[in-house]
C-alpha cells in the first residue's frame, strides 16, 4: 500500500505535470501495441478459421484413405467392409462450383453419403424435425438436390425450395435447394461457403462415376496398430492411409510461420516504442536525481527507487496497451481481409467469417507490451538505484550524465552484431527461424549501442568543419553530440531501427519482386493459358476431355503448345505440386530461374526425361538435392527419378516438381492434359490480336468448357497479387516509421527541456534565440543523419538476413539479392525530412519559459 501511495505521489504527479511528454510516449506505445495486437488477432482469425474448418471437415475420422494424385476407385469399399478393424467409413468428394447465371465467387460442394457420414461429421437442417428429415432424405431421393448454408443462401439470394444452376469443370446443371443447414459442424467449413449434396448426385454432376476423393475411417476400439497395418497391406499399393490431421497440420504450420513473421515485423513498432519509454524514464531519472536522493535520505531503499521507475515504464506499457484497444479495433478490420487473402494466396484457402477474440492472443499482446515497456525502463531504473542520499545536499548534479563508457558500449555493440553471424547460420527450431530472429534482435541492439560511439566520432570529426562552414550553432551542436553520451544515442536507436527496417524491407521486397518478375517472365511464359472450366480453383484436378484435346492439337494458328498435368501431392506431410509438362517446347520458348545445377546440362537431361526438376522450396523442405532420388506414387504409377536441378518457383504453396510430360506418358501412364499454354511462333507482329483470335476460336468451338487467360494478363495478375500481399508489410513499416518520428520528437524535446538552464546561459552570454534554435536544429539534423546512416548500414545487413535466413527458414525460398537504389534514394531523404519535421516541436519549445526566469530558478 505504501508503495502505491509513493508511486502516486512521486511518479503519477510528475507525469501529470508533464502530461505532454507522457502522452507522446503513450501514443508511441499505443501505436506499436495496436499494430502488434491487430496483426496477431488478424492472423489468429485466419488460423482459427482454418483449423476449425479443417476439424469440422475431418470430423471423427481416425484415418483417411486416398490415392495420391488421383481419385480412389470405390471398388475398394469391400476391402474396408470386410476388414475386422474397420468400424465405420464414409466416402467423400469435394469440388468448387459457382452459380452459372449470376457472377460470383466459387464455393465448396461436398458430396457425401448422408447415411454413412453421420458417424463422422455433424450437420443438421434447419426447420422442424419432420421437415428437416424430408429435406435431408430428398438428397438421396431426388437427383440434383443440395443443401446450402444460411450465409451462402443469403449470398446467392436463394431460398429453400428454389432452383439454381451451377457450373462445374465438366458440367452445368440445375439443382433444387432441399434445405438450409444449421450453423454448426460441417456448415462452418470454409467460413460457411459450403453446399452438401448426395454422393450419387455429386458423381453424376461431375462425371466422376465410381471415383472418390477419399474415404474417412474409424476403427473398432480394440483395433491395434498392427490391425491397421494389416488393413494397409490388404489395400492396393497405390492407396495411402493418411492421418486426417495431416492437411490441417501442414496448413497450420504455414500460417503460424506467417504469423510469426508478421508478429516480428509488427513487434518492430513496439520495439521502436521501447526507445520512447526509455527516453522519458531516463529523463525522469536524470532530472529528478535530487528528489531521488531526498527519498533515499528519508529511508527509501534502492529497490524502492528501482521499482518506482520500473513501474513507471510498465504504466506506459499498460496505458499504451489500453489506448491501443480502440486503435487495434480499427486496424484489425483493415488487416483481417488482407491477411486472410494473403494466406489464401500463399498457403491455404481460408474464409474468415469474423474476428475471434482469443484470450491467449490478448494476453500475449498485453504481456509483450508490458515486458517491452518494463525492459525499456530497466536501465534507467537501475541508474535510479545508484543515486546516493548525499546528492540531496548537493546542487549541481542534475542534468545529463554519462552512464557508460562509450567505448565499452561500442564493444558490446560489436559483440552483438558479430554474434548474429553464427546465429544466422543455425537451422530453425521446429521450422521456426528462432536463431535468425535472435540475430536480428542482436543486430538492432548492437546498432543502438553503437550509436553513442558513432555520435562521439561524428561530433569530433564534424565540429571543426562545421565551425568553418556552418557557423557557431552547428559547431556547438556537434560538440554537444560528442559529449552527450549514451542516452541521446539510445534515442537515435529508435531511428536506426526504423530506417534499418525500412531499408531491409525495401531491399527484400524489391529482391522478391525482381525475382518473381524474372520467374513470371520465364516460367509463367506463354501467350494463352487454357485449362478446364474452374480448373484453377479446383487445383487442376480435372483433365481436359480427350475430344477437346484432339481439337486443340489440330488448331492451326501458328502457335506451339505446351501441355501440362498438375497433381497436388504430399511428400511426407509436405504438400507440393507435381507438374508433367511438354518440356522440350517449353524450354524453347520459356525457361526456369535456375538455382543449382548446370542449366545447359539440366535442360538436356530434362528433355530426355532423365530426371525431375525441383523448386527451392521443395528442396529446402524435403532435404532433396541434385543427384538424390525423388520417389512418389501418382495415380497408381510408382515414380522414381533423380533430381537433376533446382530452380526458383513462387507459385502457391511453393513446392513444385517438374517432369517431362512426354516421358511421363512413356514411362508411367497417360497423365492427360489439365492445361495447355500456347506460344505464338512469330513474335515480330502484334501478339495481342492473335491471342484474342485464338481465344475466340476456342470459345466458338467449345463454349465455356474451358477457362482461358492471356499470358500477359496472367503475369500481370501474379504481380498484382504479389503487390497486394506486401501491402500489409508496407502499412506496418509506415507505422514503425511514425513511431520513430515520435521518438525523434521526444528525444529532442527531452534534450531541450533538460538543457533549458544551459540554453538560457547561452542566451545570457550573448547567444540569440535564432542561434540557439539553429543549434537545436543542427543537433536534430546530426541525430537524424547519424540514425539514417547507421540505419542504412543495419538495414543492409538485416535485408541479407531476411532474404537468406528468415525467408528460407520460414517459407523455404530465397530470392536474387537486388537493391532498389532508386526507391532508397527517393525515400531516405523523405525520412530525413520527416524526422526533421518531427524536430520542429522541440525547437519551438526552446525558450517557451523566459530565460531570466529559468536562470533565477537556478
Amino acid at each position, binding site marked *: 500500500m505504501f508503495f502505491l501511495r509513493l508511486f502516486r505521489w512521486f511518479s503519477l504527479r510528475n507525469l501529470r505535470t508533464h502530461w505532454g511528454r507522457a502522452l507522446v510516449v503513450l501514443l508511441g506505445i499505443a501505436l506499436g501495441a495496436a499494430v502488434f495486437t491487430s496483426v496477431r488477432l488478424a492472423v489468429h482469425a485466419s488460423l482459427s478459421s482454418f483449423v476449425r474448418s479443417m476439424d469440422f471437415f475431418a470430423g471423427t475420422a481416425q484415418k483417411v484413405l486416398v490415392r495420391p494424385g488421383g481419385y480412389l476407385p470405390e471398388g475398394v469399399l469391400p476391402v474396408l467392409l470386410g476388414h475386422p478393424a474397420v468400424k465405420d467409413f464414409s466416402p467423400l468428394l469435394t469440388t468448387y462450383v459457382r452459380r452459372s447465371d449470376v457472377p460470383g465467387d466459387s464455393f465448396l460442394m461436398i458430396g457425401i453419403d448422408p*447415411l454413412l457420414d453421420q458417424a463422422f461429421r455433424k450437420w443438421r437442417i434447419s426447420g422442424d424435425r*419432420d421437415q428437416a*428429415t424430408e429435406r435431408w432424405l430428398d438428397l438421396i431421393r*431426388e*437427383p440434383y438436390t443440395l443443401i446450402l448454408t444460411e450465409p451462402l443462401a443469403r449470398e446467392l439470394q436463394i431460398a429453400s425450395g428454389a432452383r439454381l444452376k451451377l457450373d462445374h469443370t465438366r458440367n452445368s446443371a440445375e439443382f433444387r435447394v432441399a434445405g438450409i443447414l444449421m450453423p454448426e459442424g460441417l456448415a462452418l467449413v470454409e467460413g460457411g461457403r459450403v453446399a452438401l449434396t448426395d454422393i450419387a448426385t*455429386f458423381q453424376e454432376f461431375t462425371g466422376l*462415376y465410381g471415383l472418390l476423393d477419399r474415404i474417412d475411417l474409424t476403427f473398432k476400439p480394440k483395433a491395434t496398430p498392427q490391425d491397421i497395418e494389416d488393413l494397409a497391406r490388404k489395400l492396393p499399393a497405390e492407396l495411402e492411409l493418411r492421418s486426417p490431421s495431416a492437411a490441417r497440420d501442414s496448413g497450420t504450420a504455414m500460417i503460424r510461420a506467417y504469423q510469426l513473421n508478421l508478429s516480428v515485423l509488427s513487434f518492430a513498432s513496439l520495439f521502436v516504442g521501447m526507445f520512447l519509454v526509455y527516453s522519458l524514464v531516463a529523463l525522469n531519472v536524470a532530472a529528478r536525481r535530487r528528489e531521488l536522493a531526498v527519498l533515499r535520505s528519508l529511508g527509501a531503499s534502492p529497490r524502492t527507487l528501482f521499482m518506482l521507475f520500473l513501474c513507471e515504464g510498465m504504466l506506459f506499457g499498460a496505458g499504451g496497451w489500453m489506448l491501443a484497444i480502440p486503435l487495434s479495433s480499427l486496424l484489425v478490420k483493415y488487416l483481417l481481409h488482407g491477411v486472410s487473402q494473403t494466406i489464401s494466396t500463399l498457403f491455404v484457402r481460408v474464409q474468415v467469417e469474423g474476428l475471434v477474440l482469443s484470450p491467449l492472443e490478448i494476453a500475449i499482446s498485453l504481456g509483450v507490451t508490458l515486458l517491452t515497456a518494463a525492459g525499456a525502463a530497466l536501465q534507467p531504473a537501475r541508474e535510479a538505484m545508484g543515486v546516493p542520499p548525499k546528492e540531496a545536499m548537493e546542487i549541481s548534479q542534475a542534468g545529463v550524465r554519462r552512464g557508460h563508457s562509450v567505448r565499452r558500449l561500442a564493444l558490446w555493440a560489436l559483440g552483438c552484431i558479430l554474434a548474429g553471424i553464427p546465429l544466422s547460420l543455425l537451422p530453425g527450431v521446429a521450422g521456426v527461424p528462432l536463431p535468425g530472429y535472435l540475430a536480428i534482435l542482436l543486430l538492432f541492439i548492437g546498432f543502438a549501442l553503437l550509436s553513442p560511439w558513432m555520435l562521439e566520432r561524428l561530433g569530433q570529426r564534424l565540429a571543426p568543419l562545421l565551425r568553418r562552414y556552418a557557423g557557431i550553432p552547428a559547431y556547438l551542436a556537434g560538440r554537444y553530440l560528442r559529449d552527450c553520451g549514451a542516452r541521446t544515442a539510445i534515442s537515435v536507436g529508435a531511428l536506426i531501427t526504423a530506417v534499418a527496417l525500412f531499408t531491409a524491407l525495401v531491399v527484400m521486397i524489391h529482391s522478391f519482386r525482381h525475382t518473381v518478375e524474372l520467374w513470371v517472365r520465364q516460367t509463367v511464359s506463354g501467350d494463352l493459358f487454357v485449362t478446364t472450366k474452374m480448373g484453377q480453383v479446383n487445383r487442376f484436378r480435372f483433365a481436359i476431355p480427350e475430344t477437346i484435346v484432339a481439337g486443340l492439337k489440330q488448331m492451326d494458328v501458328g502457335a506451339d503448345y505446351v501441355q501440362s498435368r498438375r497433381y497436388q501431392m504430399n511428400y511426407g506431410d509436405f504438400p507440393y505440386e507435381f507438374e508433367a509438362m511438354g518440356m522440350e517446347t517449353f524450354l524453347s520458348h520459356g525457361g526456369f530461374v535456375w538455382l543449382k545445377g548446370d542449366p545447359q546440362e539440366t535442360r538436356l537431361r530434362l528433355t530426355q526425361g532423365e530426371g525431375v526438376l525441383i523448386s527451392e522450396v521443395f528442396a529446402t523442405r524435403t532435404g532433396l538435392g541434385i543427384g538424390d532420388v525423388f520417389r512418389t506414387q501418382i495415380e497408381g504409377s510408382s515414380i522414381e527419378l533423380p533430381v537433376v536441378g533446382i530452380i526458383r518457383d513462387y507459385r502457391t504453396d511453393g513446392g513444385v516438381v517438374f517432369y517431362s510430360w512426354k516421358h511421363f506418358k512413356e514411362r508411367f501412364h497417360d497423365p492427360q492434359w489439365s492445361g495447355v499454354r500456347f506460344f505464338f511462333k512469330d513474335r515480330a507482329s502484334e501478339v495481342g490480336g492473335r491471342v484474342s483470335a485464338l481465344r475466340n476460336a476456342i470459345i466458338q468451338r467449345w463454349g465455356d468448357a474451358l477457362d482461358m487467360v492471356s499470358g500477359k494478363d496472367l503475369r500481370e495478375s501474379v504481380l498484382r497479387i504479389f503487390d497486394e500481399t506486401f501491402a500489409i508489410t508496407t502499412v506496418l513499416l509506415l507505422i514503425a516509421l511514425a513511431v520513430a518520428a515520435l521518438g525523434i520528437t521526444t528525444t529532442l524535446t527531452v534534450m531541450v527541456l533538460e538543457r533549458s538552464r544551459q540554453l538560457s546561459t547561452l542566451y545570457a552570454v550573448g547567444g540569440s534565440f535564432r542561434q540557439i534554435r539553429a543549434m537545436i536544429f543542427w543537433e536534430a539534423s546530426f541525430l537524424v543523419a547519424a540514425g539514417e546512416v547507421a540505419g542504412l548500414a543495419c538495414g543492409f545487413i538485416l535485408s541479407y538476413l531476411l532474404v537468406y535466413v528468415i525467408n528460407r527458414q520460414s517459407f523455404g525460398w530465397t530470392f536474387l539479392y537486388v537493391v532498389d537504389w532508386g526507391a532508397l534514394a527517393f525515400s531516405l531523404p523523405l525520412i530525413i525530412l520527416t524526422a526533421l519535421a518531427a524536430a520542429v516541436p522541440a525547437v519551438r519549445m526552446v525558450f517557451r519559459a523566459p530565460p531570466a526566469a529559468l536562470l533565477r530558478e537556478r
Partner: protein
Amino acid sequence: MRSAFAFIFASMVILIGGLRTADADNSSGFLQVTGPCKLEFPRDHAPHPGFRNEWWYYTGNLKSETGRHFGYQLTFFRHQLTPFGGSAGWPDPPSAWRSRQIYIGHAAVSDISAKRHLQAEKVGREGLEGLGIGGWVQYGQDVTLFLPGWSAVIFPDSHKIAVAGDDFAFQLELKPAKPPVKHGISGYSRKGSTPERASCYYSFSRLETSGSITVAGKSIPVKGESWMDHEFSTAPLEPGTVGWDWFSIQLADRSEFMIFLLRREDGGLNTASSGTYIDSLGVLRHLDRGYFDVRVLDTWRSKASGAVYPSGWQIKIPLLGIEVDVASNLPDQEMQTSASTGVTYWEGSVSVKGVKGGSPIEGQGYVELTGYAGPFSALK
C-alpha cells in the same frame, strides 16, 4: 441429423402398429396394402419393393450349456424413398450410389445373467452392386438381407443370422418348428380405421435356434427359441396414436400368442389393436381387441432417457383361459439408436408365469415398447 432418422423409423418401425399420421402421409405412388396379401413362401420372404416400409425382425431367448440366459434381437428395416420405378427420372447414366431404398439394422444382446444389455446399429443404402453396403440379394429361393458385417439369410427351411458389433456378435441358425403364421385376415393386418392403414404381416412363432453368442471377447455356444416377424406396408400411423406395446409370447406347452396395442394420446387404445394365438399344432386364432386385456403391473425409469416404461404386465385372454404375468428379465433393455434412427425404445426379453386352462404355465417372450421416451413427432 440424427433426429432425421426418427422419421424413417417412425414410418417403418410402426409397421407393427400401422404407422404415420395422415397429415404426414406422402404415400402417393407407393403400393398400398388394402386387402388380401396373398402371401406365398418362400417368395414373400424377400423384400417387397413398391411398399414404402418393410422389416424383418428376429428375437429370441437362448441359453448356454451352463444355463446362462441371453436374449437377442436383430431387425432389418427397409425404407423406400421413392415409389418403385426402375431408373425412371434418374440421371443417365446413374451413379452406383443412386438408390431408392435404405436399410437400417438394429441388434442387441441381453446378457440376463450378467445383467447387461449390449446393442448396435447399422445403416446403408441399397444400390451399390457388389459393394455390399446394404440391401438384399436372392439366389434361387434363398434371400439374403445385409448390412456391413450383418446378415440374415432366409432359406426355404431355415434362417441364418449373423451380427458383428463392437461389443458383441452372434451367429445363429434358426429352424421353424411351425409353418409361418399369417396375422389378421391371411396376413392382412389392420392397423387403423381405413383399409389402407394396414400391413401384410406374418411370423415364424417358434424357431429352434442354435449357434453362438460372443460377449466380452468370448464365444459361447447357445440354444433356445426365437420368433421372427416380417411385415410391409405403406400407410402411416393413424392420427392420435402415440406408440405401441407389442408382445410375442411362447408358452411352455408350445403354443404362442402375439398382441399389439396401439396407444392413443387420450390414454386409450386404438380399436385396431389385435393379436393372434397359435396352438401347439400351429392352428391360429385371430384375437380382436375385445378378446384380451393387458394391465401394467410395474414400471421402470430409464436413467439414460428418463422414459418410464412398463416392466410388468398381466395379460388375460379369457376365451383361451390364459391369465399370465409377464415380467422383463432385465429392466434396462432400452435401445438408444442415435447413429441410425435416433429413436429410443424398449425391446427386451421377458418371462411369463401364470395359468392356462386352469393349469399353471410358464413361458418366455419379447416385448417392444415405443413412444415412451417422448412421442414420435411423426405420430403427432
